[in-house]
């Protein structure tokens, strides 16, 4: 009986010779991540357990991205607490100020996470790195504390669902639309406790930016991890970034799956997830006339340069509706600079956008774009739960950068085809 890529990566981080779904294992961790919300609890637990030294200062990443630039005194206190810890323990990958980017855009960009790695993060969207062919999963702060201390963590080997996606993507249909469509099909707990493995001809041609968007939202179907078989596109992305060896794993032909779901991508149109669940998905043509007050283009799902390029293409010589607040968030300082050099920021400014510093900001209703009662936003983010971006009676609609841009221009949920 063969193994899936997820099982193989997990096994490679233990001393085991065999592994199967359902098994409880203790595995070595390559990279452990915390942010300004989750790291304080982890550090407190670390101190409480009399932790003197972290297991490996080069394998911990602390990224202060959620409430930064610090929005108030208590968030500043949290960051100060982490900074002191990071300096004391000489944490290699500590990012704040002008170095900070949204963690799940920053870590792949800097080559900190690589194919074949086992990555845990005290942030649910840690599953993003599955795009690189790594096993990456979100855990809690206590888990992070345990890893900072010992370098290991317990895992239950997940079953895998295989998605076989074939067919050419129609115009304006992106990785974001694919994953929204999948979550719409299987529901927010459709992959609970399981791995989502993405394969097929569409996937093998899909850009790394699109793969990252898709893996990012695996958690939105309840999955433990999302994973893409590494290939040429992976090599192109990691080659120049990696500063240590990495390894490609692939599923055996006779690997066991709990389910295999086939999707014809050529039949899809851009998707929109209506409030208040990411599974509440409709094709944009069936959205009806939904007026919006804000359009947010950014986040760990869709704040990469490729996303900004698509949006800029739509905003070129066009303005956002005067009724819409347009917020563009380049996800990292590097992306910000690229967008500047490519003239994208000028296009956004001309369109009437507020350009935010790299930050989680409005995505989690933290700061830099909170919604008032009754307001509606279209956002390229990943969650639209009640109160996610502000007032409990506000609404969030999830979509791709193309849809968010077109909607900003027309003041209602719309496709670029309508411009």
């Amino acid at each position, binding site marked *: 009986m063969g193994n899936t890529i997820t099982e193989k990566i997990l096994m490679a981080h233990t001393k085991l010779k065999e592994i199967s779904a359902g098994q*409880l294992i203790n595995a070595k961790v390559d990279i452990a991540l915390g942010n300004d*919300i*989750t790291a*304080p*609890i982890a550090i*407190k*637990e670390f101190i*409480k*357990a*009399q932790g003197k030294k972290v297991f490996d200062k080069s394998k911990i990443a602390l990224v202060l991205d*959620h*409430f930064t630039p610090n*929005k*108030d005194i*208590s*968030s500043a206190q*949290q960051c100060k607490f982490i900074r002191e810890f990071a300096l004391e323990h000489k944490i290699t990958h500590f990012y704040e100020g002008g170095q900070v980017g949204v963690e799940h855009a920053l870590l792949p960009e800097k080559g900190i996470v690589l194919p074949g790695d086992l990555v845990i*993060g*005290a*942030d*649910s969207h*840690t599953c993003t790195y599955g795009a690189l062919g790594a096993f990456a999963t*979100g*855990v*809690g*702060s*206590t*888990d992070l*504390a*345990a890893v900072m*201390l*010992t370098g290991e963590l*317990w895992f239950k080997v997940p079953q895998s669902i295989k998605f076989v996606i074939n067919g050419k993507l129609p115009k304006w249909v992106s990785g974001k639309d694919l994953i929204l469509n999948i979550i719409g099909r299987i529901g*927010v*707990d459709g992959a*609970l*406790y399981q791995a989502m493995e993405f394969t097929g001809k569409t996937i093998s041609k899909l850009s790394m930016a699109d793969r990252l968007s898709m893996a990012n939202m695996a*958690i939105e179907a*309840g999955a*433990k991890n999302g994973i893409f078989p590494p290939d040429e596109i992976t090599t192109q992305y990691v080659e120049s970034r990696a500063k240590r060896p990495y390894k490609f794993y692939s599923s055996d032909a006779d690997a066991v799956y709990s389910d295999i779901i086939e999707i014809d991508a050529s039949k899809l149109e851009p998707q929109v997830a209506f409030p208040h*669940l990411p599974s509440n998905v409709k094709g944009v043509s069936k959205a009806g006339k939904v007026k919006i007050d804000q359009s947010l283009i950014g986040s760990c799902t869709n704040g990469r340069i490729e996303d900004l390029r698509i949006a800029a293409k739509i905003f070129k010589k066009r303005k956002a509706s005067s009724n819409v607040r347009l917020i563009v968030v380049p996800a990292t300082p590097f992306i910000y600079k690229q967008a500047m050099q490519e003239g994208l920021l000028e296009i956004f400014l001309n369109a009437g956008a507020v350009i935010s510093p790299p930050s989680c900001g409005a995505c*989690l*209703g*933290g700061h830099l774009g909170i919604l008032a009662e009754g307001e509606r936003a279209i956002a390229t983010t990943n*969650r639209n*739960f*009640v*109160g*996610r971006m502000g007032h*409990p009676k506000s609404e969030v609609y999830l979509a791709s950068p193309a849809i968010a841009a077109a909607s900003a221009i027309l003041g209602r949920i719309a496709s670029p085809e309508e411009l």
Partner: protein
Amino acid sequence: MIFQGKVWKFGDNIDTDAIIPARYLTTSEPQELAAHCMEDADPKFVTRMKAGDIIAGGENFGCGSSREHAPIAIKAAGISCVVAKSFARIFYRNAFNMGLPIFESRELFEAIQEGEEIIVDSTSGTITLASKNKTFRINPIPPFMEQLIADGGLMKHIAGK
């Protein structure tokens, strides 16, 4: 262990934003978090609940973010345990790691009305709904999880090794 208390009922997919909204995550102090527990699902919950009460959830309880602030807020508010049809993965992990007792039962949710009292006996693996003369079985906790609870959470578990 035995938990006895009045039940507060919530539906499916109660996410961590509903349990503790992100706007309060500039702190990790349990009492400050407890003051906003379940606020976006039921703003009056915190003022009406009493220590020892029990939350009954539907499917996928605790979905969304990895914030451990969610089980911390529930525990610090005085909730003795959570019984749900199913739990989201990270919430499940977090609850065991930090010591909030949680149990899976599909039948309880269908049978119970908000405000009724139940007795959860984790040793015998039963939930008793005395007013309706009914008893339900709890899905057994995996042995490793039992060990985690016995050791007092993940950090104490690894310290003991």
